[in-house]
Structure formats: C-alpha cells, structure tokens
C-alpha cells in the first residue's frame, strides 16, 4: 500500500467510526420523538396524572423537575464557583490542593446511586430534612459540583494572565482583579459548566430516589420541605411499576425529559458562542 492509500484508508476508518458514534444518539432521539410526539398535548403538559397514572398528564413531575433544577442551581453554584476561584487563583500547588483536586476528580466518578444513599443518610436523616425538595436539591447539588468546578476552573485559568497583571498594576487588589476582570471574562465558560451540570441533574433518577421523589403525588408541593414528583423517577415508575401503562405516555414522558435536558444543553451552547463573540482576545 502506498502512503497515499494508507492516508485514504485512515480517513475512511475515522469517518466511519465518527458516524458510528453519532448513530445511537440519532436513534435514541428519533425513536423517542417518533413514539412520544403523538401523545404530546397541552393537556399532557398541564394536567396531573389520573387513573393510577394511566391517563392524564405529567404536570406535577415537570414542575418537580423544574423546582429541583432551580434548587440544584442554588445549592451547587455558589459553592462550586467559590471552589473554582480558590483552586484557580489562590490554591497554588500544595499537598492539600492536590488532595482537593483528587477528591473532585473522584467525585465525578462516583455512581449516582451512591449520591442517592449519601443524600438519604446526610440530608434526609442526619439533618432531618425528610424526603423533601431541599434534600433532593442538595444531593443533586453535590452531584453537579465536580463538573461545574472543573469547567469553571478551566474558564478562569483561560483568562489571559496579562489582564490580571494590568489590573494589579493599576492598584486593584487581587480580589478586585478576580471580581472585575477575571470573572466577567470567564463567565461564558462558567455558565456553560453550570448549565451542563444542571442538564445532568435534571435527568438523574438515582439521587432523587430516596431523597425527594414521590411515587404518585398529584398535588403540588407547598414548601421546599415537601416531596414532589420528578420526571426521571416518574418515567422509571410508569415504565416498570405500573401494569397496563400505555406505551405512548411512557414515550411522551421520555420526550419531555429529553427536551428539557436538550434545551439546557442548547442554551449552554448559545450562551457560550454569544459571549465568546462579544469578548475576544
């Protein structure tokens, strides 16, 4: 084989492999849309389930997932961003920070059911929040921290050193430099990390299983210490626990969940490209 032929073969193989990666994604999305779209209606989105969840809509589960996503944001982000600022700007390279970094990497690799059990022990029982939105949001918050911390840290580190130097040379303190130069410039990256973290949190089932999710609760939660239904768990329930469940409701529920997660990812991408275009260096 000549070198040119080898080159062509390599390109062909790589292209095929890339296509193979894309196929499952398209299939999953395609199948869910194909089967879920017909049963999707305004009533489905705005009515509570009836007749043992075999009829009616999924409004409480949608609302629950939205509430949990917001709660996750509140629980995770101040802490994650503070941690990212510390690691990127203050920590340096010491034994302690190496441990912290290792902990964050490992946190990302922990199976989500373990987060669920941790949340049960820590927030539901030890802190006595009970099975509640607070407990679920805190559990999901911890789950999102690794991805938010690492993307935020990367975004902060990618701000040119020169901006810091100039800011300091003008008599700004280190904190003012971070607050007024580094963070605004790192914001697109940080927001991307936040939204990707939220997308992950919105779709998780195991962490909310013991901490917040209700099997069947058509009433809406009245406070953050109430239980709520949530889409991923609802999907799990109607797919495995309810006999005689119409297939199209299952698919429509999956479709709604998929749309929420996909739209979060889409927003993340848009925010990033928009803010990138505005700030260039």
């Amino acid at each position, binding site marked *: 084989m000549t070198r040119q032929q080898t080159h062509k073969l390599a390109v062909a193989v790589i292209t095929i492999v890339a296509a193979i990666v894309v196929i499952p994604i398209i299939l999953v999305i395609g199948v869910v849309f194909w089967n879920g779209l017909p049963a999707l209606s305004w009533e489905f989105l705005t009515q509570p389930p009836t007749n043992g969840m075999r009829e009616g809509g999924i409004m409480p589960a949608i609302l629950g997932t939205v509430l949990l996503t917001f709660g996750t944001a509140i629980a995770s982000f101040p802490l994650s961003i503070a941690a990212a600022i510390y690691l990127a700007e203050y920590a340096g390279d010491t034994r302690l920070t190496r441990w912290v970094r290792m902990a964050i990497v490992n946190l990302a690799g922990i199976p989500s059911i373990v987060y669920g059990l941790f949340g049960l022990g820590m927030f539901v029982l030890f802190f006595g929040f009970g099975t509640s939105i607070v407990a679920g949001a805190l559990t999901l918050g911890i789950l999102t921290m690794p991805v938010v911390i690492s993307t935020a840290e990367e975004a902060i580190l990618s701000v040119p050193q*020169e901006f810091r*130097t*100039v*800011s*300091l*040379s*003008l*008599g700004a303190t280190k904190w003012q430099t971070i607050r*007024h*130069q580094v963070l605004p410039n790192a914001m697109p990256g940080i927001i991307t990390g936040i939204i990707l973290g939220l997308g992950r949190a919105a779709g998780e089932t195991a962490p909310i299983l013991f901490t917040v999710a209700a099997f069947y609760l058509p009433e809406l939660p009245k406070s953050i210490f109430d239980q709520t239904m949530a889409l991923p768990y609802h999907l799990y329930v109607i797919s495995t626990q309810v006999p005689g469940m119409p297939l199209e409701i299952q698919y429509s529920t999956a479709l709604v969940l998929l749309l929420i997660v996909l739209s979060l990812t889409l927003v993340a991408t848009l925010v990033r490209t928009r803010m990138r275009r505005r700030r260039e260096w």
Partner: protein
Amino acid sequence: MKTKIEVRDFDFYYGDFQALKGMNIPIAEHRITALIGPSGCGKSTFLRSLNRMNDTIPGARAEGEILLDGKNIYDPKVDVVELRQRIGMVFQRPNPFPQSVYDNVAFGPRVLGMAKRGRAMDEMVRESLEGAALWNEVKHRLDDSALNLNPGQQQRLCIARTIAVKPDVILMDEPCSALDPVATLSVEDLMRELAEEYTIVIVTHNMQQAARVSDYTGFFWLGELVEFSETDELFRAPREPLTEAYITGRRG
C-alpha cells in the same frame, strides 16, 4: 532637581539566579529615564521591581532599598496595592481589556473608588483620554470595544488607563515595540508631554528612541548597571568601553 526614586544597593534574585547586582540609580522627578541593554540584561526585571510586580513570581527575592519620595517601597509595612496605584505601568504589547474604551479608562478609578458612575467619572475619563492625546480620536466611540482601535490608539488607551488612577510615576516596558513608526512617534511625543506631570521610566531596545525621548539613560549589562548619565552625554561620550561597544555596534 528632585530625585523621585532613589535605588540603593538593590539586588534581585530569581531563586539562586541573581538578576540584578548592586543597583544604584537616581530617578529624577518629571524627567524621562531610559534603560537600555541587550535582552536578558535585567532592565525589565528592574522596571518591575519599581512597582513590585515581581513579588508574584515564586522564589523571587529583593535586597537593598528603593526609596520613593524617601520611603522604602520594600518596607514590610508598605501596602503594595497602594504603591501600584502611585507607580503605574504600560506594557510591551498594547493590552486593553476586552471592554469599551470608556470602561478601560474607568476601570482603575472605579476599583479604587475615586469616582462613581456619572458625571464625575465621565470627566475623569475625558481628562485621562486627553492626557493620552487620544480624546479627539475616540470621543464619539467611547462605547466601542477597545479592541477595534488600531495598535497605536490601543497603546495610548493603555496610557490613559494608567494615568486615570493619577500615579506619580509611569513605568513603560518597551511601549513601542509592537507599533509601527508613525504610532511610535505619536507615543514618543506623548511621553514628552507626560513628563511635565509624571516621572517616567522607560525600558527600550531601541537606542534611537532612548536618545530621542529621554533625559537620562542607564545601560544595563548582565544584571549590572554599567553606566548612568545624561542621555546626551551617554550617547555622545560614553565613559565605559562596554557602553561604547554596545551603542556603536547597534548603530552600524
């Protein structure tokens, strides 16, 4: 004439490497002092010692004294943040923040609490831009991104940003090395004007520039100050053979 900055037996180390050896330099108030010498001779290190920008480098260490208005800036009691407000800096590459022209100039006064938004700040921004001979070119595009200005304008914007915090001294680290000859001339003219109000120390690779703009010149070689005198004298009749070799070698 008053000495603004008095450098006394100043040594500087990066770890074990001694970058500056026994510096003694008087820097005259409202004059331009140029520092010349080959790359790696320590002139930039010296410049950054004057506003303690080297402090952030791990393993860096200073010995000796640098007196600003008679007070040692390496005294442990000195507030570095305040010092840097008094000794501003302009860098080699024009490096405006990726913000509007206005916000670039307003950044310093804002974080230092010198003026709030509104008319006082507008006034401050205008004064600084006028001071940097840039006002007429940008007065109608203050909200434009600073990155849309040409390199010469960007560098003058950086100068405006520096003088906005009302420093006594301006340090310039090869401020024209990224500029074309026309922009270089405009910055040099500006330096002469600025010298009426500020004390200026400039590091430059360009000996003609040192000869054109400065009142005093110091020649650095391998971390030592070989010669320091009035610019005319240094270029016309250098005392040290090394200085002469350097300036004539570069001229040819």
